[in-house]
């Protein structure tokens, strides 16, 4: 069973609900903080961290000795992350999505993939609760690949709780995808309601059942 705790608006008490759920379920459960931009579960759970691993994304590095300056890489890259200009090829690793198109389609096999650091995944124990969190490297823009890496640590024999990021765009979708149930936490204010509606619309498209918790009534 995988339950994601989300909220359109930030600051509604999402993390309190997620961690309380984990504390009640104890040994049977595992909590994963997927709010990799601002992970907060650790503040409430105070886990002992046992492992820490860097997560990276493969980005291109061009060997100009092999490169025939054909320009194929710039043509195939959909994210303007690599371009051939004059007698050189310039990569913009921070724009790269790590799709592998340029290295795979380069006719000269001149492109190698090197890692770009996205952040870390830490695991540990908070009392008898298994704890996992992702923390994005400051300056890194792309949360979804790190969130996917966090979710790779899901243990299917556990009751899994995912603390989702706020909002309603790709990081939220990446988190709640594959969950059996989504708990939406909101507050009774015009901002709370507006953001709830947006988030519900985003998640409804995935066909996951949703329940709403209203805080600070």
């Amino acid at each position, binding site marked *: 069973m995988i339950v994601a705790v989300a909220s359109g608006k930030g600051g509604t008490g999402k993390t309190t609900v997620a961690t309380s759920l984990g504390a009640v379920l104890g040994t049977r459960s595992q909590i994963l903080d997927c709010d*990799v931009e601002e992970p907060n579960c650790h503040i409430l759970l105070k886990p002992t961290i046992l492992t820490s691993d860097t997560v990276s994304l493969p980005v291109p590095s061009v060997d100009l000795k092999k490169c025939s300056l054909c320009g194929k890489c710039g043509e195939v890259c959909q994210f303007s992350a690599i371009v051939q200009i004059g007698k050189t090829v310039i990569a913009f690793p921070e724009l790269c999505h790590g799709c592998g198109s340029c290295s795979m389609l380069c006719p000269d096999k001149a492109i190698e993939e090197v890692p770009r650091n996205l952040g870390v995944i830490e695991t540990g124990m908070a009392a008898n609760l298994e704890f996992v969190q992702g923390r994005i490297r400051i300056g890194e823009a792309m949360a979804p690949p790190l969130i996917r890496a966090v979710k790779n640590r899901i243990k299917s024999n556990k009751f899994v709780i995912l603390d989702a990021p706020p909002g309603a765009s790709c990081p939220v979708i990446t988190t709640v995808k594959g969950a059996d149930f989504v708990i939406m936490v909101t507050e009774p204010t015009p901002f709370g309601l507006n953001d709830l509606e947006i988030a519900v619309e985003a998640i409804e498209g995935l066909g996951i059942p949703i329940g709403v918790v209203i805080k600070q009534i």
Partner: protein
Amino acid sequence: MKEITIISGKGGAGKTSFTASFAFLAKNRVLADCDVDAADLHILAQPKIVHQEDFFGGKKATIDLNKCSHCGVCIENCRYGAIGQDFVVDHTACEGCALCHYLCPETAVTMEETLNGKWFISETRFGPMVHANLIPGEENSGKLVALVRNQAKVIAEERNMDMVIVDGAPGVGCPVISSITGVDHVVIVTEPTMSGVHDMKRALELVRHFNIPVSLVINKWDIYPRMTMEIEEFAKSENIQLAGKVPYDRAVTDTMVRRRAVVEVGPGPAADAIIGVWDQLKQRIWQ
């Protein structure tokens, strides 16, 4: 012309209420709501839309099942697991990289533009406002933020305005980066809670990463005065300008319910403090 962005790291710290109040206090400004995936500023600003346009942020793959020979090259190489065993592309997983399009021996994959949202130019009682709605669940919020900021700057220049006030997004990821790069000043709104401070520090690290002048505001400072003191000490030791402290005040929520910025309604503890913060910020921005 100056561009300032209000962010908070943690959501719910009061960022949008502050943005609306600053907008009321500033004269000659354009507003830009860059919290495009959960935009709230329109609730207070009640914009009258005068222009709107679709936003196409990227492409998604579609496989023509009549052409597809089920060779499986696309499934094997897609790094996002976006293509199912039935050769149907899951558009919520597809990043639009087009690798499948280039690899498919049957040329069965086409890349089609997807509508990611809409953006608007509006008139409000705070002056012109540029805002946007990302279609819920869609991506490319960073690109949409860049577009909104650009439009706001164009309007500011056309109408000879002195300032663009940007409401940023929570977090430290793509939409936030896109809403602060190159601005003249960033205001971080925080609150004296453990998570508020934790998130503020990460937001601050991000702003410094881009070398942007920054001021800090502590909202609801009196809900936990000891933590407020710690924040003040932290700010001093890190050499960060504190633009002021705003007390907890029911009027902030009450005026939000009435679709008003708190400073519009008249004097009160929060309103008075926000006016003080704004005076500080103005000096700093134009110094």
